[in-house]
């Protein structure tokens, strides 16, 4: 097990090296000019002379390879430079925003699990009867509703009409509720159906009949055999999607003015804030790889068959 983890962590190095090349390259392929954007951000009208000065200051007049290795050398020490737009240290900005995004993704995940697991169980127990059909419709609607539409609808109802929750911002826990719900609806739909199907598949497995034949009580069969085996695909998918939740919270964050990574990167791209964009891409790659590793490890714990593969 430890060997496996170390192996996976070592693979991180070549992956991150590739990511760094892509991050550096992509930013330079972007349309627009960093020097102009920089000057505009500072409120200075860009002239030929000024652009030339800024270019020299930023070191953009050097060959690309030199620029790349200069950046890489610093990035290895977690120094991603200073943001052009905010003039703050990129790594601090990123970690600050990451905390907010993690809060959002974490709370959304809690909602997802708290709702989709009971929903999936009820659907499986009453499969193809009224409760299952209701859940099916709810899941279908939930899965087809884009968050940029669902979010405003929720705001309209809970903030503007009922006045229960704030419209936007991130001051308190109450601010967290609406964006989290908006984000979780799609996943609730996915997981409740996934769990239902997985439960139905496992409940007709032979090991369930054999447990009954041994006189094991129906409750124990459900918890020890059916639920346990059915949770494996749910946990695996959940792990993969958690990375997506962190990277894909952009719309929700912009909608609710949530100061997370998604909102940060949108404004950074608009401002051609090279250091910030590069740092963001690397950070996302690291998050994805770590979340996948964690998912694999949890799967191994849940499913002993996977241990053979280690």
């Amino acid at each position, binding site marked *: 097990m430890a060997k496996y983890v170390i192996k996976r962590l070592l693979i991180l190095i070549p992956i991150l090296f590739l990511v760094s090349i892509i991050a550096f390259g992509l930013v330079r392929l972007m349309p627009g000019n960093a020097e102009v954007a920089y000057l505009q951000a500072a409120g200075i009208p860009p002239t030929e002379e000024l652009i030339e000065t800024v270019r020299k200051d930023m070191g953009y007049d050097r060959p690309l390879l030199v620029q790349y290795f200069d950046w890489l050398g610093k990035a290895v020490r977690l120094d991603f430079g200073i943001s052009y737009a905010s003039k703050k240290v990129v790594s601090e900005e990123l970690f600050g925003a990451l905390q907010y995004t993690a809060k959002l993704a974490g709370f959304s995940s809690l909602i997802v699990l708290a709702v989709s697991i009971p929903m999936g169980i009820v659907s499986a127990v009453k499969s193809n009867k009224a409760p299952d059909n209701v859940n099916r419709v709810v899941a279908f609607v939930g899965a087809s509703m884009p968050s940029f539409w669902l979010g405003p609808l929720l705001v309209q109802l809970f903030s503007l009409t009922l006045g229960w929750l704030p419209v936007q911002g991130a001051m308190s826990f109450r601010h967290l509720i609406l964006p989290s719900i908006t984000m979780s609806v799609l996943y609730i739909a996915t997981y409740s159906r996934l769990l239902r199907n997985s439960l139905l598949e496992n409940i*007709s*497995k*032979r*090991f369930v*009949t*054999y*447990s*009954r*034949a*041994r*006189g*094991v*009580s*129906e409750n*124990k069969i459900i918890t*020890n*055999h059916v639920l*346990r*085996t059915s949770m*494996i695909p749910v946990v695996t998918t959940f792990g993969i999607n958690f990375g997506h939740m962190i990277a894909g919270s952009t719309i929700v964050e912009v909608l609710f003015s949530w100061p997370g990574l998604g909102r940060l990167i949108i404004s950074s791209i608009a401002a051609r804030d090279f250091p910030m964009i590069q740092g963001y891409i690397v950070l996302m790659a690291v998050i994805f790889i770590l979340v996948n590793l964690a998912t694999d490890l949890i799967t191994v714990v*849940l*499913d*002993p*068959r996977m241990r*053979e593969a280690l």
Partner: protein
Amino acid sequence: MAKLLEVKNLDIRLKKGKETIPAVNGVSFSVEKGKTLGIIGESGSGKSLTCYGVMGLLDKKLWDYNGEVYLDGELLDIKDNKKMQKIRGNKIALIMQNPMSAFNPVITIGAHFVETINKTGETKKTKEEIRSKALELMDKMRIRDPEVVYKSYAFQLSGGMLQRIMIALALVSEPELLVADEPTTALDLTVQHEIMNILHGMQKDYETSILIVSHDLGVISHLADDIAVMYGGEFMEKGPAHKILADPEHPYTRGLFSSRPAFSKERLKMMPGSPPRLEERGTGCQFYGRCGERKNGCKEYSPDKGTMISDREVRCLLVDTEETQRKLGA
């Protein structure tokens, strides 16, 4: 001889929309104390269904079943899952075919023992007590390294090993009746032989009655005291094993026995055709379509009970005549 298990008119039907299709047509049989009844027949004849029906293990969404099942003279409520739960794994134990998929792949063999021993939750035994009991039983089943096996998962063990573990699990409660559904089918020959010896030894030690189902004549002739030959959801012939084996009366039994491989250079005889699928079954004699000795009236022949020829019951028009009755001296 006292009857341990008595089954009367067990009827199992497959639900299909609003209709039901008969799968087992009101079979009756009994297993005596400490004896073995072997049900033999081709795949799809309803043997396993009969076993599961007796134990109340059929999915009620799929199957409609009725019949009286007496265990030790007591009528069992085979449709009540809660009541049957107390009987199963207690007075009646089951060993299944294909042990590879009968164990849950994500929990250890030990965990299977724990839940089997502590199933009711009334008399909670400690982990250590369960472990030593399991090791003792596995040792009896001649399982090598039971400590290692206890910690293993099903996918790490062989089919023969798992089948022996199943028998060990069945012995936990020292059941009065062991239902063995094709216990040797998925195993190779030498392991088959071992399993049969274990079952035989177990019957001697515990005086367990066995209801064994197999399509393998070798297994049945090795273990059974009585034989029931099943075809199309009905018993074609039923009686003491030595009589049926020596002198099969029903054309189907004869066909079944003659398709058994022998160590000769003769070409193996084969019964033409295959058993009817559930939807294809007609009324009348189920074997009519494949019978080489059929005659007028066979197609409509569907008596409530077979003909008794001394202690044997045969369901065939050829036997069910006054002439043959007289000849056989019933």
